[in-house]
């Protein structure tokens, strides 16, 4: 099922920007999940997860960050700052948060979600962080370099672009057959007569200004006021079990798993990756679903 798309207008000082939001609705929803993608992707990447969440009774709200998918491209690196992303998320939540929603962030999207929760007074029912780096790591530089190359690549056909993407990230090839065309349209677009990844290379370049800087958000986790699950792929470099064990022991609302199967970085396309997320969100909704 195709999502409906809505536009959210955001004001940054004197500037106005437009965000695209993909919404997979379901009748008589039991809850709502706001899903935030990582760098070099867009909300369309959640189609398989959204369909699964729909079947479990959840509505999925999946915005495209600025410079990604069908949201506005700024075409200059200076516009893409973490402050802009966090404020974009504030606008999304003003529009779609009901006070009982769940939230999910992947990679960079998880980092922005964490920063937002440090700032906002909202308290979601639960949050899921997928493969979210909580401290600086050399793997971030390698990932950034790879994304930069992908952002600059141009192709003569969608098929060629897809082959290039799947060679670099095989896990992204596991698209359910009925969603093949949707993912193609979400991942690629025509720019100046050639096919490119559907994100602004300047957004990726801007991310580089944060690389090499020390950061450590692990110490901020006790400030999370809701149930939180951090999940990492089996080969993810971003999970530190020793530190997580310590944080989780002192904060029973926080849990982590470093055993997500299905490849790294997680593509959220396969049952092995979708099932634990659905299970966690469904458990977090148990009290909502119960009759009052």
């Amino acid at each position, binding site marked *: 099922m195709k999502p409906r798309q809505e536009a959210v207008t955001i004001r940054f*000082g004197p500037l106005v920007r437009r965000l695209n939001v993909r919404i997979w609705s379901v009748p008589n929803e039991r809850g709502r999940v706001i899903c935030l993608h990582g760098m070099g992707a867009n909300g369309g990447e959640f189609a398989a997860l959204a369909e699964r969440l729909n079947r479990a009774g959840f509505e999925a709200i999946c915005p495209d960050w600025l410079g990604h998918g069908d949201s506005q491209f700024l075409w200059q690196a200076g516009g893409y700052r973490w402050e802009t992303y966090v*404020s974009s998320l504030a606008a999304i939540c003003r529009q779609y948060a009901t006070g009982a929603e769940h939230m999910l962030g992947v990679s960079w999207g998880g980092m922005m979600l964490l920063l937002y929760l440090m700032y906002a007074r909202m308290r979601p029912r639960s949050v899921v962080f997928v493969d979210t780096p909580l401290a600086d790591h050399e793997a971030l530089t390698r990932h950034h370099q790879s994304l930069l190359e992908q952002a600059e690549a141009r192709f003569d056909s969608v098929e060629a672009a897809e082959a290039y993407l799947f060679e670099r990230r095989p896990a992204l090839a596991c698209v359910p057959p009925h969603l093949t065309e949707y993912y193609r349209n979400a991942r690629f677009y025509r720019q100046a007569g050639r096919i490119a990844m559907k994100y602004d290379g300047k957004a990726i370049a801007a991310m580089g200004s944060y690389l090499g800087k020390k*950061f450590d958000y692990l110490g901020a986790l006790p400030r999370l006021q809701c149930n939180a699950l951090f999940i990492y792929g089996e080969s993810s470099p971003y999970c530190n079990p020793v530190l997580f064990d310590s944080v989780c022991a002192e904060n029973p609302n926080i849990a982590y798993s470093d055993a997500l199967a299905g490849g790294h970085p997680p593509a959220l396309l396969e049952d092995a990756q979708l099932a634990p997320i659905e299970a966690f969100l469904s458990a977090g909704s148990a009290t909502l679903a119960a009759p009052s």
Partner: protein
Amino acid sequence: MSASSYRETIVAILVELGELEGTKQTNLLAEPEQDLEFVAIAMDSLTALDLCVNLEDATGRIVEPADLVAYPSINRLASYLDGGGGAH
């Protein structure tokens, strides 16, 4: 609140967050025309968010992280909060 009250509040919060040493605070409060760019303080992301949260608590105005980019100094942010829009 006036722009100068907002300014004093911002300075007080930055001191509380450990981002301004005593001398700098004294100078800023004694000389209202003196300004300080946030980038000069080199706040990390969590401290910047704490500034937003504490400013909202103290003033009742919504202060978003992007406001710190649009109005990137103490005086500009104070002017913006006072309704002057801040100078870009």
